[in-house]
């Protein structure tokens, strides 16, 4: 199950793209840096899922997509668990909740943000770089394409894996190390496909008249809505909580 924009009409979809982006960033920082105890962290994750459900996001898809990072979760759990003397469950779970929180926050953000909103957010964030002569628009475009390409690349890996199994490869057999080694043949075709897709995208953009230079007008204009103020306040509270729990 891949995470990508799914059309919807809840309050989460209606938020200003800048507020959405900032809220997502703050949540990611919160789950990465907070100094809370395990129970509070689990509560925070539950609250995040509650808000996602309230915003009518496809929670099943989000939860199913966790299987893509199970390996990362296990590694983090093991590393954190063995940090002290012997294995301890609490730090292992804390580490895993941090990863899950970051993953779900980013997943929610990508689910409610179409390409145009992502582009608006990154352009706004990069705008100050223009003062230093850096190409803010182009950097924003690169960011958006990179983010949007991740699910495409994941499905590409799935496709190649299926094509190899469909012709006799036994990728899933033979324990951890042989499974890891079997992933290597996926890498070159995936990279080749990424280059092919990149060229296709460039052609498609040129075909639609995209040019790097020049002042561009905006088809969608984003204002401040009813839910933007509480969402902004929530971002402020979460940021304060992160700093307070970590540094004070």
């Amino acid at each position, binding site marked *: 199950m891949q995470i990508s924009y799914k059309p919807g009409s809840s309050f989460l979809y209606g938020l200003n793209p800048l507020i959405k982006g900032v809220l997502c960033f703050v949540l990611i920082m919160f789950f990465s840096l907070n100094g809370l105890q395990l129970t509070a962290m689990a509560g925070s994750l539950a609250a995040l899922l509650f808000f996602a459900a309230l915003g009518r996001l496809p929670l099943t898809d989000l939860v199913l997509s966790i299987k893509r990072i199970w390996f990362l979760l296990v590694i983090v759990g093991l590393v954190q668990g063995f940090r002290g003397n012997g294995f301890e469950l609490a730090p292992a779970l804390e580490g895993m909740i941090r990863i899950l929180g970051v993953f779900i926050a980013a997943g929610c953000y990508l689910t409610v943000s179409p390409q145009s909103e992502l582009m608006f957010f990154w352009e706004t964030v990069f705008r100050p770089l223009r003062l230093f002569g850096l190409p803010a628009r182009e950097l924003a475009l690169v960011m958006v394409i990179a983010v949007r390409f991740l699910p495409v690349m994941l499905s590409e890996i799935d496709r*190649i894996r299926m*094509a190899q*199994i*469909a*012709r*006799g490869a036994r990728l*899933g057999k033979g324990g951890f190390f042989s499974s890891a080694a079997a992933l290597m043949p996926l890498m070159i075709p995936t990279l*080749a496909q990424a280059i*092919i897709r990149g060229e296709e995208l460039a052609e498609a953009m040129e075909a639609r008249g995209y040019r790097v230079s020049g002042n561009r007008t905006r088809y969608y204009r984003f204002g401040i809505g009813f839910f933007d103020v509480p969402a902004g306040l929530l971002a402020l509270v979460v940021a304060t909580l992160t700093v307070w729990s970590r540094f004070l």
Partner: protein
Amino acid sequence: MSPQLELKNLTVSYGGKPVAQKLNGSFGCGRINLLVGRAGSGKSSLLLTIAGFHTEFSGQILYDGAVFQPAGNFSLTFQDPESLFFNTSVGDEVEYSLRMRELAENEITPRAQQWLQRWGLEPEKFYSRHPFELSGGEKRRVALAACTVAMPPVILLDEPLAGLDANGQKALAEMLNQLAHEHIVIVVTHEPEVFLHPDSNILFLREGQGSWFSGDDFLRQAVCNREFYPLPRWYCQALGPFSTASSLPPVNAEAVASFIAREKSHADKL
């Protein structure tokens, strides 16, 4: 006795919703097995379940009496042949299956070239070309060659006729008929008439239920009732008066003409 791929109480679901329920029956060698039904009836899902890619199912898939282990024992061509390509040349694509089965290095290229030739693609012309450069029909044939070269016991094909012209379709049906002598060939298709023979084995999926037919029964039902399955109108009209005959001809103009001539001369004699 040749091995059978048996479905036992098989229910295939998507997101908890069953798309094909309680399928019981078997696919065998000696004839092409056809999986037909309207779009969305669960044909491709069943194929992916047999291949082990779709795991949301209950019931059993047995091969020769034991639970079917897909790894290394099947090949599958997808609806879109491009989905199958991940190498940079046609030769590498066809050789991949042989390498996976650890064939001796000096046997791989000659066998791959011979197999490509058999699918109507000149090795000298196609072997080093990129698969994405080929025409739709050529891609389809490369995909089929790449999937069948290692001769796995179970060969699964999802809509193999798309992109092939009439001659290509006929040649494919002949090739698959040959393969079906020793392998279990299961074909998902919206054009069963290309493969249909009186002794074909057909699993017809409709509204979540599966019904098994012999080719003869399927043709008879389709001729009597256009709602059952939309075979070509000319075939149904020509054979309408003969729907009670003991055996109907395949959907082929020559076969139908000789069948009608034979039936008429038989009636005249009587």
